[in-house]
């Protein structure tokens, strides 16, 4: 146990260095900016605006977290004995306190009278962030790409833009607070969160054998394609 703990201690430092703090930090700062902007305006805080800005902030933070699993040294870390599930979980564990602190700050920036129900909006934010992490895990699981972050962020952003348009009325996720569908929508959010957690868990382990479905043919030594 002591040996494991010793290994983990060294691992924590190593993993902490590889976490893309700049991306996470950019997402966090921009998220706080988005929520804090209406504070500069005089006048009544608007609950509808506050709700949607909080959603926007959660999306920005999720976009930052889409880069969390980027590992420039992936080809070297793949064969190490510490399982990938442990390494990725460690990254999440390192970011989790930051995320919790950030979300508290974001909620604190919203004036109290305009604040949406805390539990429900936190569920939405958690589901959004977990969805981004699950997408990153899926990208890592299905491709050989060491840094899938930009693609994952683009996919998350596109999904976030398309979902409100494409969801049928009865499955709507983005409802205002006083809407009678609020509770039902949050049951669906809980479902999204559960689904994202399952995908994350399923994509955790390093596959024993690589399938060639989504793999790019990249002969060793050649770094890019003609345009790169």
């Amino acid at each position, binding site marked *: 146990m002591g040996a494991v703990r010793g290994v983990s201690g060294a691992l924590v430092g190593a993993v902490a260095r590889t976490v*893309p703090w*700049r*991306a996470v930090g*950019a*997402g966090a700062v*921009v998220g706080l*900016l*988005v929520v804090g*902007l*209406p504070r*500069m*305006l005089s006048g009544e805080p608007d609950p509808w*605006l506050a709700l949607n*800005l909080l959603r*926007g902030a959660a*999306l*920005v933070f999720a*976009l*930052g977290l*889409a*880069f969390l699993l980027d590992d420039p040294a992936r080809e070297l870390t793949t064969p190490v004995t510490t399982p990938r599930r442990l390494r990725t979980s460690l990254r999440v564990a390192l970011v989790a306190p930051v995320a919790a602190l950030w979300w508290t700050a974001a909620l604190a920036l919203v004036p109290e009278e305009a604040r949406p129900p805390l539990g429900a909006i936190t569920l939405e934010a958690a589901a959004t962030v977990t969805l981004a992490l699950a997408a990153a895990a899926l990208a890592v699981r299905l491709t050989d790409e060491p*840094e899938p*972050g*930009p*693609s994952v*962020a*683009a*996919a*998350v*952003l*596109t999904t976030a*833009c*398309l979902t409100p*348009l*494409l969801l049928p009325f009865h499955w709507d996720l983005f409802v205002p607070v006083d809407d009678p569908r609020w509770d039902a929508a949050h049951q669906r959010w809980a479902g999204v969160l559960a689904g994202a957690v399952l995908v994350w868990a399923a994509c955790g382990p390093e596959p024993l054998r690589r399938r060639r479905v989504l793999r790019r043919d990249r002969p060793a030594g050649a*770094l*890019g394609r*003609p*345009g*790169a």
Partner: protein
Amino acid sequence: MSAVMEATAPPVATDEKRRGRAAVLALARFEARELLLQIPVALTLVFYVGYTLYGLLFPEDGMDAYPALQDVDRATQSGPSVLLGIALLVCVNRAALRSRRRGTDRHFDVLVMEPWRRTVAHALSVVPYAVGTALVVLGAFTWQALRPGAVGHGSVAELAVAPLFVLFCGVLGLLIARLFPAVFAAPVLVILLFAVSVFVSASTGDAEWSRWLSPIVSENSNETLPSDLIGRPAAWHALYLVGLVLLFVTGAVFAGHGGRRTWPVKAALAGTLVLTLTGAVGQGQGVSPELTAAREKASTHPEKDQTCVRHGRSEYCAFPEWTVRTGTWAGVVDRVQNLAGGSAAEQPLVVRQRVEARYGLDGDGTIESSTTPHQVTVGTRWGGNRIPEFASAVASALVAGDEAKGGELCDGRVVTVMWLAVGGASDPLSDFRHVRLDDSTSGSAIVLSPTSPLSMSAGQTDVVREVLSSRPRAEVTSAVKSHWDELTAPGVKTADVARVLGVEAPKEADDCVGE
């Protein structure tokens, strides 16, 4: 020897220039193809084309068969082309940073092609998508313009906004890549830009100049105005967008590692900045006094702008863009008048188109009922529920004498009005349901008309519903014609009307909602 060199030098130079240009075009072609292979771009492109086609093929509302082209051009801007723009922003940004991510920047440094040419090629790779958007916009607009019920004029500057927006997004992604060469910058900045634009428009109280700074400017009102009263500075805005696109491209060429900082680029940067500012100032002027006067005149004295056409007994006065539609109005008037009896069956009417243009497109205004005898108001929109609404206005003018009195009816004449309005329609019950505000066929309700609405009590609703659903049309028509004076006498009881029309009288006495 020197003479020979001088003689051959110019062709070499032009040849090199031509080769440089060919290389830029080849790279642009390659990058454009690569963009198409990106899932976000491909998905939003398919969604954009599919959504536009679906909207054209399966119209939601009967009004879609009668489009006003001055609204159709604006409608091409807000739509999924925005999503295509966002996808392109992110993907162009990623493509421009690909060499950095793959660590091939230093390989490029030894190539003949300068970094700024690569930037230009990335900018050009967006052009095919802008052209594609322009084709979709043109296709959708042409489709609408070819509908038999189309009226009005489109504006080229409004149609240009969607393709320019796509171009704007692409080159913005490129500029972000050159200014902040980090892969996570673009997606995060998209949300920040969006929040800032909301903030700016909120903090300046939706002032005209700040509202027009955003690339796509939508309007609050669904009102359709004559195209010369709309007053959107569309041409200035298109100039502003062109200026922004060129500014971003020159900015991207100028900035970052390997940026070209020669004097022509600096001059171009200054020039495009001036162009953008000119557009921004031009579009922020607000509503001119002449336009305000024209709007005032069209709202209060529409007859000064209108031309009148005679169809049958009645006269139809419309704004010039709508004169082609007078025949359709005449069809409805004839349908209603054929059911009337007495002098009303032969009464010449004046159908006048009226519009509340004083608020522009900022808000919806209501039109006052006309007090001129036998004058009926028709709005600028047509099709769907607008047809039974107009029919009820015609019927109330025939029964009560003018629109204003028609809106105050609360005795048995309401039943007569509703029978005239919907009795001759192909599906009277469905028209009856749709002309009522709550889409019901029981209980009291408001009946919409182009001006002030009518109100129906629950008893009157029951009588009209029974007449429409259980009595043969021919019998009711002849009963109405032969008892016309009785059915249109002021103060007639709903129960008496029900008896004449051969249905059960309502339990409760009259009459109006809220009395």
